[in-house]
């Protein structure tokens, strides 16, 4: 079959360091093509070349049989190539409907008409999003839905999805995959980037794997399985390290009760929830999106405030605490590592050292008032080596790092505060398998050192295989505590839903 889009020997270099090198890639009409690889493998760069976001340093792109170069994403969009970015490109101060029709408004635009047609369109995609809602009020999952809907709405012939499912619930993923299949039936070609290998195996017709900016293999999905993909992605097998079965000897015994949360409430999001956190243990917290798990731990870390009246009580080392700012929690040794690293985790235009120093500033651990370049460089070098952060140089800006390495910077920024309680919120979201393995090892090491570790995750194998005890959150409260020895994915999901 003649490919709709073909890349030949494409190379893209930043500051003469190639992000992708001599990559050949073809996308057939009406296929779903999964693009896999570790963070930093060059997946995003390759798709950015296709969508006209970046210009290739060398090589050529053939689209619909003609050699093409898109000057910008708008040109690509008008030619039928749309890209749904990991970080959404919506206008926060506009409604969902306005965002959907942004750039394609009629001369005489009626708000009501836009609203109705957006509503019908979203319903046809099975996306439960209110078209009248302001985008800034939407959660990450719903923003992603709007972004996807916008790409579909432009009747593109090629749609590139960069990790579209990272923020979706299992139910939303099911709808999303059904949508992909409908698009495929209509003849739309889809490039699908995901770190969830099972998703690629389930939905894709063909798989292409990149490693260190080079093409490793391309083939029909039937030729791959999980282990083969991982081996191709990282050059070694990790399945024995990730998500292994645990027995009683692997479980850590609880240490001292360091934090006790009793009946805390915050509006309708957190409702009378109670639980304890112990030293030397990993407490896994599972809950569906909207279950209040993140909000609960943001209250503990002083980011959100619990209800002024009847807001419950939090005791740290048997001492009641009520934080009004995160700085108070940080000074008490509580560190929250955010799930949304791009907007809350780091300053993307600052260097690794500057970001780490910001962590020190938050904990009041800096010496003196003058920031020396040497200090920043030393910090960057120390933590780059400690957390195995891969960067072109220690002065690299965080925006230039891959997702996994950015996550490590966020973790480093937290750990530099020398916390006693570390709360990881989705620590491996948007992170490749090799970095997942390293982050898991780090989390285990922290618990082994006697720190109280909380890990919030939507990924059940991660919860089951890393936690020493599992708390399940539903409708704003902890509804179940399970031991990993007795817990199964079904039991956890049942508690989270019923």
């Amino acid at each position: 079959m003649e490919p709709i889009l073909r890349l030949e020997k494409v190379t893209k270099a930043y500051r003469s360091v190639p992000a992708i090198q001599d990559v050949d890639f073809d996308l057939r009409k009406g296929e779903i093509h999964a693009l896999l690889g570790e963070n930093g493998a060059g997946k995003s760069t390759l798709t950015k070349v296709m969508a006209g976001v970046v210009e290739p340093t060398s090589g050529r792109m053939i689209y619909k049989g003609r050699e093409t170069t898109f000057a910008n994403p708008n040109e690509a969009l008008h030619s039928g190539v749309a890209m749904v970015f990991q970080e959404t490109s919506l206008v926060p101060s506009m409604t969902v409907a306005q965002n959907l029709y942004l750039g394609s408004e009629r001369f005489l635009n009626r708000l009501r008409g836009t609203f109705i047609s957006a509503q019908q369109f979203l319903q046809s995609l099975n996306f439960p999003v209110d078209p009248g809602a302001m985008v800034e009020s939407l959660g990450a999952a719903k923003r992603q839905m709007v972004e996807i809907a916008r790409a579909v709405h432009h009747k593109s012939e090629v749609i590139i999805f960069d990790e579209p499912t990272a923020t979706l619930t299992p139910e939303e993923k099911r709808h999303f995959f059904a949508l992909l299949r409908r698009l495929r039936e209509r003849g739309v070609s889809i490039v699908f980037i995901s770190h969830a290998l099972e998703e690629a195996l389930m939905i894709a017709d063909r798989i292409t794997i990149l490693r260190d900016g080079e093409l490793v293999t391309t083939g029909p999905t039937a030729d791959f399985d999980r282990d083969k993909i991982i081996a191709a992605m990282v050059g070694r097998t990790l399945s024995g390290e990730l998500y292994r079965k645990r027995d009683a000897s692997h479980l850590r015994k609880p240490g001292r009760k360091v934090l006790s949360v009793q009946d805390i409430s915050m509006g309708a999001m957190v409702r009378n929830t109670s639980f304890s956190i112990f030293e030397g243990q990993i407490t896994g917290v599972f809950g569906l999106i909207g279950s209040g798990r993140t909000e609960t731990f943001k209250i503990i870390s002083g980011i959100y405030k619990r209800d002024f009246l009847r807001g419950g009580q939090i005791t740290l080392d048997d001492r009641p605490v009520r934080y009004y700012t995160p700085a108070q929690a940080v000074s008490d040794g509580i560190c929250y590592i955010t799930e949304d690293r791009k907007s809350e985790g780091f300053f993307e235009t600052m260097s690794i050292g500057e970001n780490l120093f910001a962590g020190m500033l938050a904990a009041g651990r800096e010496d003196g008032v003058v920031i020396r370049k040497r200090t920043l460089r030393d910090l960057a070098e120390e933590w780059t080596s400690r957390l195995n952060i891969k960067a072109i140089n220690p002065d690299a800006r965080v925006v230039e790092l891959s997702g996994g390495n950015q996550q490590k910077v966020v973790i480093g920024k937290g750990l530099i505060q020398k916390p006693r309680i570390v709360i990881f919120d989705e620590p491996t979201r948007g992170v490749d398998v090799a970095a997942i393995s390293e982050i898991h090892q780090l989390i285990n090491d922290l618990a082994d050192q006697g720190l109280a570790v909380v890990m919030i995750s939507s990924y059940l194998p991660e919860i089951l295989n890393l936690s020493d005890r599992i708390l399940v959150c539903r409708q704003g409260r902890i509804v179940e505590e399970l031991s990993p020895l007795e817990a199964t994915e079904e039991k956890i999901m049942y508690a989270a839903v019923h």
Partner: protein
Amino acid sequence: MILDPILDVFRGRAITIPPLDGAFRANTGLDDAAVFATLLGADDLCRHASGVLASAGRGLFRLRAGAAPEQVETHPAPISAIAASGATLAVALEDGTLIENGAAVARPDGVSCITALAYGPDGALWLTNGSDRHGPADWANDLMERNSAGSVWCRAPGGGWQRVAGGLGWPFGVLPDTKGAVVSESWRHRLVRVGGGRITPVLRHLPGYPARLSSRPGGGAWLTLFAPRNRLIEFVLRENHYRFDMMAKVPRAFWIAPAMSSGQSFLEPLQCGGIRVMGVHKPWAPSRSYGLAVRLDADMAPEISLHSRANGKRHGTCAALETEDGLLVASRGGGMVLAPNAGEGA
């Protein structure tokens, strides 16, 4: 944070209860346990040279596996505590009498509410006096009056009684060791170490009212909690006018107060509208009575726990005793001595 104590005056302090999680994770360890002996009012347990003894009402019983309890002593008043060291047996009665090896012995002046007895490793006899103001049977009155009139006493071998600590909120268990003793303080929901003129908290914020302590053969201890804390009772304990009205006008069995057993009368107070939904008794309901035995490690940190939940009947657990033959738990509310699997639980 600095202003919180001032703000609390206006917004009211949060009434919260520590969650049953971690080592206190709810299970049915006591509900599923085998019945070792049926003994109405089973209260205290001790290991004597002649076997395991249990007190219930006015009688002292010897317990044997597979046999009915054998009554070995009967006293003129209900027994409030027992302890043994080898062949030496101490028995305290609710009228304040202290009997050692069958003969009444002197007790400290003003002590008439002996709630626990224990022999230390050096042979010293320790006792806890629940309250200066009430007898052992009137524990609910002492709680509702919010008294802190309990004390701990020690009598060294051949010596006289010495007051080790005072001002305690119903001390109900004592576990002597070489450095003093660990005492359970029911009304403050905690274990404290007493000795050397100091009272040091060892384990705080327990989710119930702690009762007696006993040592384990391999180190550590067993602690029983005779009733759970619940929000309604915590609330009533802060509402002085209501509480004193209730004490004056309502029969004690129907007070909003902890109980050794509950659910026997429709006149009993309920929280949150009820503890039955569609005829099903909710195990997580906020009940007035509960059964809970907790295994503590050598540092008095909870390891595992065994529960009889709101829908169970083996409540009012006042004593636990672990021997080489296994664990026994006395359930006063259930009227039985249980033999749970000590390795089960959270």
